[in-house]
């Protein structure tokens, strides 16, 4: 692991020092705390990464509607895709957030068995993404900024979901987000499960809570394929590095939102307060940017993600792209 450690420490140091958001007004108060945590978890062990996965999935962790309840006034939920169905795994709505109307999206898991079944464990059908898309249209028309809370094991892998166009719905939801000219802030508040997550996370600012995870595949799924043994999920998680710190290092997220000591599940009110502050800070930053410029920067942000070299055979030893990433504000 020697080479990995070196690469990552180097990357981490250089990246963290240049992150704009962490220096932002209202998150800066948390900076020392974050740095303390970063030091504590300087190079997390496999077990520590796995603990993050377990916290991200903790059954007492606050879900989208728990935050909505604490952060929004006059909230109304929007139901249905205006076409075929209402998908309870996807919440859409409008509410007052610090005095202004914002549009909200977010997956919703269930708290007890009955609600889990009803919410399909937070796994969205294409109809859920279509509800999200009509909400985006609504937000765009009325110039409502958008907040998107990501918390899903993934898009639902069922026969009907496939027949109704799961892949196309995820693609088109992203395409629509890339066209909006209103500010969009996304935060992964639990599980950021692959395509099901990115469908509502093509945002101007992408945040992650300290103990959230964001991954292209579940550790279990990855283990089943690469180790041919689903039981190797701890190793797979260590390899995938789905934790907030690694995700930040790779430039995939813009900032980490602190949680109460011990995790969001220990104090929902405090978790909501911290999340609300981070969202507000991001929305304030973005509200200064004209819509077309916002969209331009949003696309450039995602355009810059990826690590590759231009040499005919791979010789670079750093994990960073050999092409400079476009500057972001």
């Amino acid at each position, binding site marked *: 692991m020697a080479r*990995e450690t070196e690469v990552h420490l180097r990357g981490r140091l250089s990246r963290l020092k240049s992150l704009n958001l962490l220096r932002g007004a209202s998150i800066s108060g948390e900076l020392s705390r974050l740095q303390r945590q970063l030091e504590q978890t300087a190079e997390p062990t496999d077990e520590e990464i796995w603990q993050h996965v377990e916290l991200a*999935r903790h059954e007492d962790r606050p879900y989208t509607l728990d935050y909505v309840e604490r952060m929004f006034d006059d909230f109304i939920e929007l139901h249905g895709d205006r076409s075929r169905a209402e998908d309870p795994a996807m919440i859409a709505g409008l509410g007052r957030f610090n005095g202004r109307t914002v549009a909200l999206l977010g997956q919703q898991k269930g708290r007890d068995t009955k609600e889990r079944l009803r919410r399909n*464990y937070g*796994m969205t059908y294409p109809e859920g993404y279509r509800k999200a898309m009509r909400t985006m249209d609504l937000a765009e028309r009325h110039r409502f900024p958008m907040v998107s809370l990501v918390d899903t*094991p*993934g*898009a639902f*892998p*069922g*026969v009907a*979901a*496939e027949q*109704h*166009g799961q*892949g*196309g719905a*995820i*693609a*088109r939801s*992203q*395409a629509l987000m*890339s066209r909006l000219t209103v500010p969009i802030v996304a935060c992964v508040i639990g599980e950021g499960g*692959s*395509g*099901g*997550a*990115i*469908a509502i*996370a*093509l945002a101007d600012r992408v945040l992650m809570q300290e103990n959230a995870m*964001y*991954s*292209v*595949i*579940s550790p*279990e*799924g*990855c283990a*089943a*394929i*690469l180790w041919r043994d689903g039981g190797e999920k701890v190793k797979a998680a260590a*390899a995938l*590095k789905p934790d907030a710190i*690694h995700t930040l290092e*790779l430039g*995939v997220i813009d900032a980490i939102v602190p949680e109460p000591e011990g995790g969001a599940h220990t104090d929902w009110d405090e978790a909501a307060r911290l999340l609300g502050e981070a969202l507000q800070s991001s929305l304030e930053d973005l509200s200064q940017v004209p819509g077309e410029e916002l969209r331009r920067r*949003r*696309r450039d942000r*995602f*355009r810059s*993600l*990826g*690590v*590759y*070299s231009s*040499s*005919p055979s*791979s010789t670079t030893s750093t*994990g960073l*792209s050999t092409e400079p990433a476009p500057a972001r504000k």
Partner: protein
Amino acid sequence: MAERIDISIEHRNLPEQSANEKPHPNTCPDCGSHYRDDELAAKLWVCPHCNHHFRVRAKERIRQLADEGTFVEEAADLRSEDPLAFFDMRPYTERLVEAEQETGQGDAMVIGAAAIERVPCELAVMDFAFMGGSMGSVVGEKLVRACESAAARGVPLVSVTSSGGARMQEGILSLMQLPKTVCAVEDLKDAGGAMISVMAHPTTAGVLASFASLGDVIVAEPGALLAFTGPRVVQQTTREKLPDDFGLAESNVRFGHLDAIVGRRDLRPYVGRVLRLFSRNGPGN
């Protein structure tokens, strides 16, 4: 129903077969006929007996589609990095070297300028032989550059996909190739450009859930599996009985996701027709 359900964006949608007893690649899996390379090549890699569409390599696909001598490859020098220092049973870097040696290609996509039936266009063609056509940073970057090249030259983009999904060895960065390619296609569309998406077997997971689904016109080859989640994972997680044509092009057209199923022998004239319709320099436009 187990409370935790695992969803794989990288599920290899290969036909059921163990690594040990792979049938010969030139044996038709549908009817068992066996052919020499030159026989199949002469038939565009379509079984003359039963119309099974064999997978074609990227360069062969380009030979089939592009007017002779018009293809000029772009960004051929891009190579994958190993940002996560990913190591499972073997290091990712080792897999990459091996794939390049086996396929003679730098990664799972080939892009470049071309003309089809004398209409200039940009081609982006995936190659399943390179790590299952999985999309990592290089595939994402190449697709973006293909969009940019199409926009710069004012020509349509034709993509031909064949992919098991995102390349999990690049972790979250492979997931980010979804929004990255989506943004590139939207940039192309904002520039007035058109995109024609041809889905070959298999077009699944992260590729289906990003650029491949954004074509102005979307067609597929007969029998191609087009699914966000492949049949095995769906079966395992939901224990649903799958329809016989689950996820196949024939099912997708019935459910409204495709403009047409186009056999490989008709693909070149079909794409040519669509290109003429979208060509900004056509007569009257």
